C-alpha cells in the first residue's frame, strides 16, 4: 500500500470530514479533469459519503457536489482544513 510518510490524499479522508487541497498529483486526463472541476490548491473539500459499495465517493466543493472514484481521489494531495 502506501509508505508511512507518504502524503495524505483525498482518499484518506473519512466521510463527514473536511480538508484542503494541496496539489493534484496525477497527470493526463484525470488530473486535468480534477482541476477543471475545481480541485485547486487551497480549495476546501468536504467528503460527504461513500457509495454503498465504497466507491465512488461524493465530495462537496465550491458549492456543488461531485462524485469521483477512490482511484482518482488518490491523485489529490490534501491537508487538514
Amino acid at each position, binding site marked *: 500500500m502506501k509508505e508511512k510518510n507518504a502524503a495524505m490524499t483525498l482518499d484518506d479522508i473519512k466521510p463527514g470530514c473536511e480538508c484542503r487541497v494541496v*496539489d*493534484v498529483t*496525477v497527470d493526463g*486526463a*484525470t*488530473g*486535468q*479533469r*480534477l*482541476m*477543471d*472541476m*475545481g480541485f*485547486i*490548491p487551497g*480549495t476546501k473539500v468536504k467528503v*460527504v*459519503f461513500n*457509495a*454503498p*459499495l*465504497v*466507491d*465512488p465517493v*461524493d465530495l462537496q466543493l465550491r*458549492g*456543488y*457536489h*461531485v*462524485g*469521483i*472514484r*477512490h*482511484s*482518482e481521489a*488518490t*491523485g489529490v494531495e490534501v491537508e487538514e482544513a
Partner: protein
Amino acid sequence: MVTDILTHADGERKKFIAECKTTPEKVVARKRYETAEKIVESSVRQEKKNLRTLTDKIDRVVCHKIFGPVVLLAIIFLFYELSIVQGYKITAYTWPFLAAVRNIIASVLPSPGFIFDPLLRAIPLGVVDGIIAVFNYIPIFLILFALIAIMEDSGYMARVSFLLDRIFRYFGLHGQSALPMILSGVFVGGCAIPGVMACRIIKDEKAKLATMLICPLMNCMAKIPLYILLVGMFFAAHKGIVMFFISTITLIVALAVAKILSLTMLRHAETAPFVLEMPTYHLPTVKGVLRRCLERTWVFARKITTIVAVVVLIIYVLMTFPGIGSDREGFYSEQANRHTAAFFTAIGENNPYANLLEGQGLHAFANYYDDYRQAKMGATSTNKKAAVDEKFRARNDSFFKIVKRGRYTVDGTTFKDRDALKVNKAYKKLNRERNTIRREIKEETIIGSVMGRIGRAMEPVTRHAGFNWRVNIALIGAFAAKENSVATLGSLYQAEPGGEEKALEERMKEKEKGWTPLHALALILFMTMYPPCIPTLLMIRLESGSTKWALFATLYPIVLGSLFAVVVFTGGTLLELNGIQAMIVFYICALAVTAGLGCIKNADPLDEYS
C-alpha cells in the same frame, strides 16, 4: 516556420517547469479559479445559509447503503410497470388504428385470389405487416423516453450512475451503463433499441462499446412470445422458476461477456476519468420532457422504418421463393375445384344464387364474405354493427342475403330466405376447406423456400442442440422480428385437416412426441442469446460509427447461443438430466463463471481497487 513555433513552445515549457517547479496547466487552472473567485466575491452575496439542503436530504436516503439500492429497485420496478405493463395496455387501443391502416392498404391492393394471392398483394402486405409490428411498440417507447427524460432532468440519473458504478466496473462497464441496460430489459421485457440509443450518454469509449454490445443480450420483449409458448408446453408446473431463470441468466451472461470484451477486443479503447457532477434535484418541466420524448421517438420512427421495410422484404422473399412449382399449384387448384364442385352440388342447380356464384362470382363472394367477417369484428357497438350491415347491403344485395344466413329485414318485414341459408351453410364448409388449402400451400411454400432449404440443410448440425428443421426455419425467420418466431412455427405446425382447432402448443406436442423439456431449454437459451433485431443493429452501427461492431454484435450471440444450446441439450442428454436439473446446473455454472470473471483485475493502471 511551423516547427519554430513548436520548438519554441517546448523550450519555454521546459524552462517554466524547471524554474517554477510546477506545470503551466496547473497554473492556468489555478489562476482561472482565483479570478473566478474574485468575481464571485464581488458580485454574489449569500443571503441565507440555504445551500441545497433539500437535495442533500434526499441524497441521504437515495445514496444510503441500504435504502439507496432499495429505492433504486423500486424505481426500476416503477419504470417497468409504467412503460412495459401500462404501455402494453395502451397498445391494445392503438393496434386497431394500425390494423385499420393495414386494411385500407389491403383494400387498395389487388384482391386475394381464391387460394393463391397475387405477388403485388402478398409482398407489399408482408412489408406493411412487418412495419406495423414495429410501430406497435411506439406507445411503449413514448413512455420509456418520457421516463428517461424525467430521470435525466430531475438529476436522479447521476445518482444511479453513482450507486451502480462500483459493480459495473468489475465487469468493464460504467455507472452510466445502468440506463441502457435497464431499458434493454433487466429482469423483465425491455427493448434494446432505446437501450443502445441511450449508450450515447456514456462518455467512456470502452464502456460505451461494451454496453452497446451486450444490450441485445438482455430481455427483449419480442422474445417473450416464444418463451411463453415453450414454458407453457414443457415447464407448466414450474413457470415461476423458469421465468426467473430466463430473466436473470441474461444479466449474468451479459456481465460476463462485457468483462471478456473489455479484457480482449476492447482492451485498447479509450477510457475516461469518472468525475461526475451530482446536480441539485429539480422538477422537470412538462414541456421539456415532452419535447425530448417526442424528438427521440420521431428519430426512431424515421430511421427505423426504411431499414425494417427492406429487411422484412428480403426475409419475406426468402421465405416465399422459389414457390411450390406449377405441378403442386395444379394439385391444389384441382383440390379447390373439387371442393367447389361439391359446393355447387350441395346448394343445388335450381338455387337462384347458383348463377351469381358461377366462375368469378364465387371468388367475388369469397372476398365479400371475408371483408364482412372482418368488418363485423371491428364493429364494437350495436350502432357500428348496423352501419356495417348497411354498407355491405349497399355493396351487394344478394351477397348480403347470403352472409346474413337468409334472415334479413326490409322495411320492417323479416324475410327468411331458405336458399340463401343453404348457400351459407355450404359456403361455410367450402371456406374451411379453402383456408386449409391456403395453410397447406403456405407450409409447403416455406418448406421449399430458400429459407426452408437452409433450415433443412442445417438440421444435421442443429440436431445437437435439439433443433429440428422447422425450428431452424422459425429461428432464421425471427431475424426480421423475433415475435414472428411463434407465427412461423404456427405455419409450420398446421392442424390436421378436418381436425379441431388446437392451440399451437398442442399441435407441436403432437407432432414432436420425442421432445423433452431439454429441447425446450436449449431453444429458450438460444433465444435469450438471439442476435439483435435489425433496428437495434442499425442503432449499434450509428452509435459506434462502425459496421464492424454491428457485424460482431450479430455474430457473437449466434456463436454463444449455439454453444449454450448444444451444451445444454447434448450435455443434458448424456448426463440424463431433466429440464429443471439441467437449468439449475447451467445457472450455477454461469454464476460461477461471471463471479470469477468479476474478480479479474481490469487493465486500468489507475485502479488499485479491482
